[in-house]
């Protein structure tokens, strides 16, 4: 049943990348346990507006755990304490009355801070643009059933394709590595017959872009897997490691 909580928030506030930020303490009072973490912030923001304090800026959109826009590191955990849950789907019933909650933005060098809790995740876009696609012109596709795909492969591709692109993997990684994100996309397309023609190129270019964007290197902490709201498995990183080496080999030793 719903009841109400009184909490203390320590929220990271920063006007922009050029201005130093700091934690600011706000009380969050009479928060119903049925509301989501972002609705809790809405309530706090409403009270800030009443006090003529500029509301806390945070990214959010769909509020149903799929768009990948919301972020927030809550008490040191990307997307908060619940597993397989985005911040927008985290509900306040998982907190206790009197708790102090630290709220920080994704802290990743490749994600420059924009304001308060909002960061710029365009680095992920550029990785995607480097090769996270199958070049297939509209109009030229063969019948969808012309290439049967074993169910097991289609299911595994779907497991990888479920990535919502939120960047929590990089945010949770002590090395700020985006390997889980890249692994998900590379594996998704490598597992499908349609992805084969660009397989080599894709792995090489996406990894190259990932490196040049300034993400760190994966040292197998598996923090990414633990916080991933889409439950992308770290075994896809292993798959990417394999894909990359085979791609590099194919690329340097052309048999044609």
């Amino acid at each position, binding site marked *: 049943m719903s009841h109400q909580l009184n909490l203390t928030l320590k929220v990271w506030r920063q006007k922009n990348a050029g201005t130093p930020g700091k934690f600011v303490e706000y009380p969050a009072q009479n928060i119903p346990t049925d509301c989501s973490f972002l609705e809790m912030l809405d309530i706090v923001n409403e009270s800030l507006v009443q006090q003529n304090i500029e509301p806390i800026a945070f990214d959010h959109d769909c509020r149903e755990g799929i768009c990948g826009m919301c972020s927030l590191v809550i008490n040191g*955990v990307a997307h908060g304490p619940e597993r397989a849950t985005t911040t927008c789907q985290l509900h306040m019933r998982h907190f206790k009355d009197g708790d102090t909650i630290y709220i920080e933005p994704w802290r990743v060098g490749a994600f420059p801070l924009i304001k308060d809790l909002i960061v710029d995740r365009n680095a992920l876009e550029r990785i995607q643009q480097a090769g996270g696609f199958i070049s297939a012109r509209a109009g030229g596709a063969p019948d969808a059933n012309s290439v049967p795909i074993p169910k097991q492969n289609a299911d595994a591709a779907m497991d990888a394709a479920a990535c919502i692109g939120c960047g929590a993997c990089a945010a949770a990684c002590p090395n700020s590595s985006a390997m889980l994100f890249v692994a998900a996309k590379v594996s998704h397309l490598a597992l499908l017959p349609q992805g084969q023609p660009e397989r080599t190129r894709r792995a090489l270019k996406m990894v190259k872009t990932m*490196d040049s964007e300034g993400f*760190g290197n994966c040292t197998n902490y598996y923090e990414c897997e633990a916080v991933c709201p889409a439950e992308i498995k770290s075994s896809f990183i292993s798959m990417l490691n394999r894909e990359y080496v085979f791609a590099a080999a194919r690329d340097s030793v052309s048999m044609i």
Partner: protein
Amino acid sequence: MKAIISFYQSSIGKKWIVALTGLVLVGFVTGHMIGNLQIFLGPEALNKYAAFLQGLGELLWVIRGVMLACLGIHIITTVLLWIQNNAATPQKYAVNNPQAATIAAKTMIVSGLIVASFVVFHLLHFTTLSLHPEWKLWEDPEGRHDVFSLVIVGFRDPYTTGFYLLGLFLLCLHLSHGIQSFIQTLGVRTRKIAEPISFASPYIAGLIFLGYASIPMASILHLINPLPH
């Protein structure tokens, strides 16, 4: 050559190098342990084994060279990765609350560097015998170098044994992450074996620790005794 350089420049390339050299070193550590455990078969077995290794001549130097090269590349590459990783996260979190990372994973660089210094000591202690040049002259009744006795005598010093145990502990801590880590990095940690491997990795490291630690422990507890010299 260009391909090799660009491979090494990539993050995954470097990780592969670390994993491959790590794999070689784990192989060495295991082989070395099995060889040394012959100490429990008595002086005959161990000294014969030592003489066999010495008898390899140039090949022994090749093996030693490869091992040292692997160690060197392993260390240099991990330090490079470590520098990059630090640079990738300019601002740290105020609150840290790891969800999955083990102590072993978080201390790889520290455990690794301490183990490296331990290896230097170990080489001076038992390979070059620089700390006890007189050991070079010890021979068993067969006229072979009496490695059996010098190992036991070497471990009778509690400080040396203590340092060895510490070194071994750190080595095995390093391996408990390292073993599953190279499987992951070399691209064979599929989802079916991911959990068993993560589960087994510390136990394998633990076995290696017990195997190695049994020798100084047996020595200091007088369970095995040197030949008279």
